[in-house]
């Protein structure tokens, strides 16, 4: 079964309200454009597409840091820190390291820290470490071993998008 169809049944409760931080997650009604989109956003067959979102599939293991100014879906294994805008950690995914983002949705395992404006821990989430947030949703069944602190943006922690982006050589 494709990993992209996995969370269909839960979709209405964990749907992230993109760009609508004032709306509580649990009460968000499905957006029309989302509802009309096909369930599988990623085609496995198109060889080269300028798709900007990143998908770390369940077959991929990364040892190192990930940094993106766009969204990241993790279904595989990451040993290292992850920085993105909307970061989703899927049900069988494992992250050993910290996850930073504007919005982090955890359905898998994180062994480290989550630091995000908006944090969603779904019923299958397994979180070992602290959660630094501004707005948090925890579904029944989520496992948390660590502190939840509503301190996002209050400490020295740097918002990802204002960090100087490292310049890579371009031909």
């Amino acid at each position: 079964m494709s990993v992209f169809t996995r969370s269909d049944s839960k979709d209405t409760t964990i749907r992230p309200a993109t760009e609508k931080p004032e709306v509580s997650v649990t009460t968000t009604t499905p957006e029309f454009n989302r509802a009309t989109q096909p369930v599988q956003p990623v085609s496995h067959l198109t060889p080269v597409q300028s798709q900007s979102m990143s998908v770390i599939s369940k077959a991929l293991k990364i040892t190192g840091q990930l940094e993106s100014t766009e969204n990241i879906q993790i279904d595989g294994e990451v040993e290292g820190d992850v920085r993105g805008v909307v970061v989703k950690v899927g049900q069988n995914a494992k992250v050993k390291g910290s996850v930073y983002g504007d919005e982090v949705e955890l359905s898998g395992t994180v062994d480290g820290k989550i630091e995000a404006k908006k944090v969603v821990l779904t019923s299958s989430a397994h979180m070992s470490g602290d959660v630094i947030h501004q707005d948090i949703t925890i579904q029944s069944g989520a496992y948390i071993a660590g502190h939840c602190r509503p301190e996002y943006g209050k400490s020295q922690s740097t918002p990802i998008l204002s960090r100087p982006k490292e310049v890579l050589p371009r031909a």
Partner: protein
Amino acid sequence: MPVSQRRTLVRPPLGRKEAELPTSHLGRALTIRGILDTEGELHIQGSVLGQINADRLVIGAEGYVEGDVIARDVRIVGRVKGRIFAYQVTLDSSADITGRVFHHLVTVEKGAKIDGRMPWRPLNFFESFEQPPEAQS
């Protein structure tokens, strides 16, 4: 865990149906420093600094890889700086490569930029591929 020490780059990974291994996409804005290891397919539009082990690999037009690339089948549309170890290599016209391309089967489209050598290697080099040798400077 280190990447698999010995693998074959000639056949697809045994015991795995391709359908079970969804493709990974690294988007334009993504930069990874480290080691990527997959027995499936990987499409890169972003930047990777480090080593890549994959079955099939596509480095897209906006992709940039710096480091060693080890795969069965590689298609390069973007840029690579480093070494490529692949049974089958396809270089598109916009490919830009600095380094070495170890291959058994190669296709180079008109326009591809290659700065470096492209050593051919016999089948058994890829049949039991171990970790790439240390780069000579």
